[in-house]
């Protein structure tokens, strides 16, 4: 006897009706639902958009923006894999387009867009989470050095770790890693390409030259005293460089709530 015939016979003699199966599936469903309440990963809406910075993969959860990936840079698979571990992904172009519109607004000079809440679920280490949180406090129109950012996190000698942290920033633009530069005044590197870093900094008021340096107009702001000076001011030289933010110009510093130094009168 052919096995297929045997199989048919088994099927016919002890049939498992679809209705029986459906009833059984129906019975398990409440149990599964209960268990899923504990297991279920939060949802994230994912989409691809074109932006002035190139094509971006954007993921947003209910808590905020979870990831942005420059698609022309490799590593997209890894980003997706990390996202899948933490979230149930849903394709949603509309959500991505909304974020895209906010990025466009940055280039029109409206920086309030980057205040969009972020979801740092993809960040594994506490150090990195703290770094991103304090980096978010650097306002548009200002930059900070790797060294200075390390100091704000409370580990002034860890500028290398800060560098790595910036390189693995899951949410560029919104966690403004483009606002972190080198202590020598050159703008340093960027995960989305140096060109994009220049674009972003220019949009925020820095006239970055071809030598990748900040313009001479930039002023130094002291985060503690709330005073900003010209770079050569004697008061600024005495201050701890780690406490310094660099502003595009006196206006930006003023907007951030700092007052002009009375010695060098930058404003």
């Amino acid at each position: 006897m052919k096995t297929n015939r045997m199989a048919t016979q088994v099927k016919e003699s002890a049939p498992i009706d679809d209705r029986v199966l459906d009833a059984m599936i129906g019975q398990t469903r409440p149990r599964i639902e209960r268990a899923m309440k504990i297991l279920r990963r939060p949802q994230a809406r994912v989409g691809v958009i074109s932006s002035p910075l190139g094509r971006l993969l954007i993921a947003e959860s209910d808590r905020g923006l979870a990831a942005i990936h420059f698609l022309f840079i490799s590593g997209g698979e890894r980003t997706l894999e990390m996202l899948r571990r933490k979230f149930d992904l849903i394709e949603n172009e509309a959500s991505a387009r909304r974020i895209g519109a906010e990025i466009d607004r940055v280039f029109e000079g409206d920086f309030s867009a980057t205040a969009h809440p972020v979801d740092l679920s993809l960040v594994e280490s506490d150090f990195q989470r703290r770094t991103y949180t304090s980096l978010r406090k650097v306002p548009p129109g200002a930059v900070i050095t790797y060294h200075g950012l390390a100091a704000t996190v409370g580990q002034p000698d860890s500028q290398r770790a800060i560098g790595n942290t910036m390189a693995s920033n899951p949410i560029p633009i919104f966690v403004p890693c483009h606002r972190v530069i080198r202590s020598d005044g050159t703008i340093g590197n960027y995960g989305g390409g140096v060109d994009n870093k220049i674009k972003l900094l220019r949009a925020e008021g820095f006239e970055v030259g071809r030598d990748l340096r900040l313009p001479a107009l930039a002023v130094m702001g002291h985060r503690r005293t709330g005073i900003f000076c010209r770079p050569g001011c004697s008061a600024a030289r005495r201050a701890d460089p780690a406490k310094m933010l660099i502003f595009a110009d006196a206006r930006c510093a003023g907007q951030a709530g700092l007052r002009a130094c009375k010695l060098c009168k930058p404003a």
Partner: protein
Amino acid sequence: MMIAGSRLASNAARRLRTNGIGATRLDSRIGSSGVIDIVMGRVNEIGIPPPFEAAVKSMEREIMRFLMRSTGDREDAMDLFQETWLRAYRAYPTLQSEDGLRPWIFRIASNLCRNRARDRMRRGRVIANENPDGAAPADNAPNQLDGGPEGALHLKRAISRLPGKQGQALMMRKFAGLEYTEIGTALNCSAESARASVYQAVKKLKKLRLDE
């Protein structure tokens, strides 16, 4: 120049079919080549998998049927169904390609069946509950393999007595209709080995019949 450009583009298209992300990289090299941009606009081209529920929904019955045939017990099947579902959900992010979904989920189900059978053995209980008195399932079973529904029932018993892998492979092949490559993935062996298992299983069943 034109020729080089179009060759690049067609290469990119080929890459795109095999690997969405690979195409992304090429995309940047070509610049804003219209066609690829349009294709890239679709999120799924970069490999966003469908949500778990949507992906698995169509396989619910199949899995339940498989579990029912494997365990032969309603409660057990429902239990394992729940377990299969939850495990699959938890491990879903590690599944690389959607094509592998079916054998992958069968693998989870068959692993769970095997684990359960082993646990039962350890506790010294009888797996087949057709014989509540604990005797070996009717030894005259093969004699009736040919005859009608009764014989089929005995055949079912005979299948349940096949060695684990052979029984599972046979069931996946003959009842669930999986391809040999899929069975191979599900049972963590090669397609050839899966084919051999099914063959051995069939041979054993035939032998039972000839022994009458």
